[in-house]
């Protein structure tokens, strides 16, 4: 999954937070509060996002109305799936809390943990 560029991300964020389709002019108006942007710049980026399958659009009057193809939650799920698929190989990029284990040893370890917990409960003060 290719990450969004900086302006692409700002546009996606804006469209997600609106929750309804918006024109290039709408998006430009919102983004312009924090920076100076040309209409054509925003139009080009939104057109690119449409071509990449990230935005749907339909004609309304004389302007395109854009909306995200995937919700923010769907995007989060896709990102996580991406991370999990690459797991293990790139530890200098990200470090997982736990690597995969087969079910048999997981069950074994669970019973060991529960045994230790009971022991800890029966001998308070030695829990650390």
């Amino acid at each position, binding site marked *: 999954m290719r990450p969004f560029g900086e302006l692409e991300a700002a546009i996606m964020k804006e469209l997600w937070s609106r929750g309804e389709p918006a024109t290039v002019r709408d998006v430009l108006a919102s983004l312009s509060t924090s920076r100076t942007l040309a209409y054509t710049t925003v139009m080009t980026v939104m057109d690119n996002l449409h071509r990449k399958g990230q935005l749907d659009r339909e004609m309304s009057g004389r302007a395109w109305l854009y909306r995200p193809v995937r919700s923010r939650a769907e995007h989060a799920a896709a990102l996580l799936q991406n991370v*999990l698929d690459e797991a293990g190989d790139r530890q*200098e*990029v990200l470090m997982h*809390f736990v690597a995969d284990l*087969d079910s048999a040893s997981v069950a074994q370890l669970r019973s*060991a*943990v529960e045994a230790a917990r009971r022991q800890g409960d029966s001998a308070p003060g030695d829990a650390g």
Partner: protein
Amino acid sequence: MIASLALLAIGLALVVVGPRLAGARWTRQAPWLAILTWQALTVAAVAAVVLAGVTLLIPITAVADDLGAILHACAVSIATAYAAPEFLPGRLLGTVLAGVVPVWLLVCAARVLIGGWRARRALHRSLDLVAEPGADSGGLVVLEAAAPAAFCVPGRTSHIVVSRGALNRLSRRELDGVLAHEAAHLNGRHNLAVALSEILLRAFPRVPLFAVAAVQTRELIELLADDAALEAVDRVSLASAIVSLAEMRAPAAALAMAQGGAALRVTRLLAPEPPMTAWRHRLGAVAALAIVAAPLFLAGYPALSAALSDLCNI
């Protein structure tokens, strides 16, 4: 010539004997020292081979003209001490070891570091876009996704990420353990140790020492992070967190290769081995440094002894 041969022998010995460290029990008692030792072993092996190349190339007529015969005599005596070969194969080997190997290492280092930096930047950007800041402080962000996962992404703005699926099924104490473990990775800059082992593995993928060192470094940083996390959470809760996350991911893992790393962590948390005594710890650190110093000393010794000889008494 003797120095070159000795250095090559040291390099070879480290490559052959080095991987045996993997089985040593003390590495679990003192993961920090073990990581240091792996780094010393791998760096010394490379340094010995590169220095062997350098000593093959010490030129006979390095300094001549103006400074006069005294300096010339000194240079000759140093060069004689190394007895660098005049014949072509020796020169060629020297050039490869002293020139090509370091350049190749730099290329691999650039690839690993820049590639990692790019991947992290992309990940940070995506996370900023779709992850919610967690209820707690401490850099925790939540990914609204059912798949269970917990990981950290180092960098100037680091992230500790827990998915909603994992968050819902971890107890408060378990979550504390996860966060403390990941924070230890970030604070200890464990990714740098991994990056170093990764660079050497990328440069020489067929040398078993570097493959073993990379695998061991990955396992050892987990032990290190567990030990650090114990300052914030008790052993049983941390062990329970590891098992809980493994349970959530178990169905997907049926296909994946079973890994001993997590099992070792749990066992080690539940039945802690006594920590290494302070003097053994210090002795180990000195030994690790000696491994790195040995090639340097071997390479420098002939020059040093020649420089101290009469010819160099300027």
